[in-house]
């Protein structure tokens, strides 16, 4: 807010006139009005129109690349029949459980590892050993350990999420300005309060970075784990479409994955605005 800081500056240099200046500033700055960005709109619509035209003109076979309008039609039919929601619901369950457990444990362990030396030393070797392993490579192992059902899929997503959240949370804790910890102690904070009132809020911006990355990895792992050993879920729908050469249905599944990704990002952004309103 450059305009505000410019006007607040004189306040400190002339306290005598402060109240007058202050009352002028306390008004909430007007929200920037939303204006349509025509270039973006033309660009995105243009792609779709060009796509539709190329397919209709017979340049590309609809069996390979269905036109956008026919895809909307197919998607609508799948929504009406309840087929899409059935698959989305099952996928969402697997994703949500894996993501929530992974991020909750990742945050707690990250806060502890970042702020307590011996906990960090305890966890560090495990993180160093397991973090670089592609978590999709663990899925076959997890199927042997946890069976073919939801559990092995959830555990795979969980491992993908927990490391990203943990590593980023540790970075956040280590990045807290030491003078803030000093000041908090000086003002009488005990160990628990230091944790709750300084370390947690101080690490939050990095925690959210971890959550965003974790959500991305989680969706990738969701797809990979649903290829195998299941008869439901978006990944299954997509894989089955390939095996039956149902290109339209496959496209719909891909688009739905994209929508889930966007929704997850939005939800996290909204959550961050509530939890970290100062940013």
């Amino acid at each position, binding site marked *: 807010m450059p305009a505000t800081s410019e006007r607040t500056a004189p306040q400190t240099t002339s*306290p005598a006139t402060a109240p007058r200046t202050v009352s002028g500033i306390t008004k909430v700055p007007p929200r920037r009005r939303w204006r349509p960005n025509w270039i973006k709109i033309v660009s995105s619509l243009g792609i779709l129109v060009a796509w539709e035209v190329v397919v209709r003109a017979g340049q590309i076979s609809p069996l390979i690349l269905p036109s956008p309008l026919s895809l909307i039609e197919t998607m609508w039919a799948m929504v009406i029949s309840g087929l899409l929601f059935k698959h989305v619901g099952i996928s969402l369950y697997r994703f949500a459980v894996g993501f929530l457990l992974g991020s909750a444990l990742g945050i707690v362990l990250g806060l502890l590892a970042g702020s307590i030396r011996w906990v960090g030393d305890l966890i560090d070797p495990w993180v160093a050993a397991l973090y670089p392993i592609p978590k999709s490579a663990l899925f076959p192992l997890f199927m042997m350990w946890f069976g073919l059902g939801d559990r092995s899929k959830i555990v795979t997503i969980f491992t993908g999420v927990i490391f990203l959240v943990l590593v980023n949370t540790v970075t956040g804790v280590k990045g807290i300005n030491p*003078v803030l910890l000093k000041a908090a102690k*000086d003002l009488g904070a005990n160990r628990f309060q230091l944790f709750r009132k300084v370390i947690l809020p*101080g690490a939050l911006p990095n925690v959210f970075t971890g959550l965003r990355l974790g959500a991305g990895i989680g969706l990738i792992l969701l797809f990979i784990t649903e290829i195998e050993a299941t008869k439901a879920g978006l990944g299954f729908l997509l894989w089955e479409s390939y095996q039956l050469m149902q290109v339209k249905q496959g496209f719909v599944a891909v688009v739905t994955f994209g929508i889930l990704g966007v929704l997850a990002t939005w939800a996290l952004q909204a959550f961050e605005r509530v939890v970290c309103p100062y940013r």
Partner: protein
Amino acid sequence: MPPILEIRNVTKTWMRERTGETVLALDGIDLTVVRGEFLILLGPSGCGKSTLLQIVGDLEHPSSGAFTFTGQAGGRKPTTMVFQEYALFPWRTVLDNIAFGPEMRGVVRQERYESARRYIQLVHLDGFENRYPHELSGGMKQRVALARALNNDPDMVLFDEPLAALDAQTRRVLQNELVRIWQATGKTFIYVTHSLDEAILLGDRVVVMTARPGRIKEIVLLAMHRPRALTRPAEVQALERLENLLKEEVTRALAEEESDARHE
């Protein structure tokens, strides 16, 4: 005037990590702080004045020696520090930053906000209660930090070069504000600075420290009435005296820094 703090033979040694040699930072500090005074710790950089302040504020431990506070109420920590870097919590509004101390003690919300609002008025920040630190200028941030320290209700407020990061105009305004607030609250202020002007404008007494190892070279009493002006004869005279005391130490401190740099 009754003493509030007695420092007896305090020393502090550091271990240089690279070379393993020990450095004597503070040597045999004896000092009695009087209740309600505005005491300046003045010295060249590296003389240990900040270390002494941190020891008084219980943020560092002395290597030997003792210090005792007298007459503080309720067994609470008698000091609160104002840092040069403001040290405001960026995720807290001005009001919540100022209410931090009482919040840690379990004071209920309404009560701690009430006292926070009083200090917001005292430091002239009315209307900024719900701003976040990043929305404030440096001078305003330091006002918040001062209000936060006062709202913690210590007997003694410790200042570690609080105005060093500010521009000259803002610094001058805040120097006057500090005197006004010190007079209004009646608290004891211990104030570390390397600025002669600041020492003259603010202090009741100026403790001039030597270059490393930090010892007390002389304690100068400033009896000029307030508000002070650097152009008045009494102030000019005091300035000259402090300057003479400090000149030698600054030269020595620079020579030492140079030899340190050569050894490393």
